């Protein structure tokens, strides 16, 4: 410090220590200060202290992570399939394709059932969104979106509107009208605005709010009427690929899965992440709540599906086989939660026994990878959409 010589512009009281000394003019964030050289040295050291805090914070986060794992492991006293040993095994299943819905010109990317258990909406790469009647296989409505790769679509709980989005970075809501003369595209309402593609969307319990997940790493809750952002959820380190809302009427949580291999559970009202799970080895393509709301399953590119229990705060089951090497793209539970249907990139659908962790059946039929899968609201059927341009019920 004694080696430093500087041109003293002024001599007077230092702004910091108030001693009368030769002063240096310093600019901090556009404000000009006069500090003596001693104070300048001390402030430079404070910067160093911040760096030390950075590494100490890193250490703290590592220790906290270890502690979290330990806490979780403490309660891991038994495996789910051990508890399920006493349950009767399921017999052989024969499930047949009852309906094949043809009409999309390109890969089917997403579908959703209507609450009336017979209608469903599906979206595809060519920008078309079609509403089908699954009983009769008639197409009831068709909309052409201005963008391709419509990766998300959802049916409103009332059955009066559909929401869809994709590469256009926004979610549009179309009210469904039976008037043949009305052009559906004219009534379109743009609700969400993201900075990257829309990967998933879902109506909450009412027609008035939509939850969206996007490639920009965030999820957001929007008001449909005003288009206003009600809450945003930050925390994923990469694209968010899927989301699912908790099933109960009073449920205020939703789970999202992303390319950062994490599945996170959020509180809708506060925007806080309540729990997070990072045991997958690759992107999580689809998440779905267990019917009781106490657990959720996730399907990932690492060819496994895993069941996470929310109250035990850990993964409780893995559904995988040596012979399955292709990623799982979608997952859904049957009504009772006993069966788990998963669609894979090797064109098949596997049916797993949730409690025992064993595969019950494989369903063939699609000629390209299965991209989306949903069980109907009353559990009588499930629909799968595939890159072979068709949907099967």
């Amino acid at each position, binding site marked *: 410090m004694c080696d430093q010589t500087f041109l003293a512009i002024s001599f007077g009281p230092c702004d910091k220590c108030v001693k009368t000394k030769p002063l240096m003019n310093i600019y901090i964030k556009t404000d000009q200060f006069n500090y003596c050289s001693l104070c300048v040295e001390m402030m430079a050291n404070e910067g160093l202290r*911040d*760096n030390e*805090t*950075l590494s100490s*914070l*890193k250490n*703290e*986060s590592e220790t*906290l*992570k270890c*502690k*979290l794992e330990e*806490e*979780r492991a403490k*309660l*891991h*006293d*038994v*495996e*789910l399939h051990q*508890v*399920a040993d006493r*349950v009767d095994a*399921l017999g052989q299943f024969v*499930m047949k394709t*009852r*309906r094949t819905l043809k009409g999309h010109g390109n890969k089917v990317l997403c579908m959703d059932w209507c609450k009336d258990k*017979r209608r469903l909406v599906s979206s595809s790469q060519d920008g078309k969104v079609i509403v089908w009647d*699954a*009983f009769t296989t008639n197409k009831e409505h068709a909309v052409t979106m201005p963008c391709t790769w419509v990766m998300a679509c959802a049916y409103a709980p009332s059955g009066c509107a559909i929401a869809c989005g994709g590469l256009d970075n926004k979610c549009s809501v179309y009210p469904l009208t039976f008037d043949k003369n009305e052009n559906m595209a004219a009534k379109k309402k743009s609700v969400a605005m993201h900075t990257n593609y829309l990967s998933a969307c879902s109506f909450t319990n009412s027609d008035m709010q939509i939850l969206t997940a996007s490639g920009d790493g965030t999820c957001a809750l929007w008001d449909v009427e005003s288009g206003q952002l009600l809450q945003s959820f930050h925390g994923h380190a990469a694209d968010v690929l899927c989301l699912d809302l908790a099933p109960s009427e009073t449920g205020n949580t939703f789970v999202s899965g992303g390319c950062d291999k994490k599945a996170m559970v959020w509180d809708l009202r506060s925007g*806080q*992440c*309540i729990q*997070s799970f990072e045991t997958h080895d690759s992107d999580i393509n689809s998440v779905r709540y*267990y*019917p*009781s709301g*106490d*657990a959720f399953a996730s399907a990932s590119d690492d060819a496994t599906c895993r069941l996470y*229990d929310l*109250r*035990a*705060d*850990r993964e*409780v089951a893995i559904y995988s086989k040596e012979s399955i090497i292709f990623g799982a793209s979608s997952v859904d539970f*049957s*009504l*009772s*939660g*006993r*069966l788990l249907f998963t669609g894979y990139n090797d064109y098949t659908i596997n049916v797993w026994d*949730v*409690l025992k962790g064993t595969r019950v059946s494989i369903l063939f039929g699609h000629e390209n990878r299965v991209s989306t899968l949903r*069980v109907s609201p*009353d*559990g*009588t*059927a*499930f629909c799968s959409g595939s890159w072979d341009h068709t949907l099967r*019920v």
Partner: protein
Amino acid sequence: MSSNSNLTTMRRLVEQLKLEASVERIKVSQAAAELQQYCLQNACKDALLVGVPAGSNPFREPRSCTLL
């Protein structure tokens, strides 16, 4: 200033981990038992599990009615 943003990110991470560490947890055996119970309770209502009689299956092949 990038060190500052790293700092804030790390601080947020530490806060988040502390939050997650404080979550109330129950034993896996209890959670598994409750999952199992839910399954068994609702198994009879599950059409995909027990199958529906062909008469009431809404997705059966449509047969044309014969008019007398």
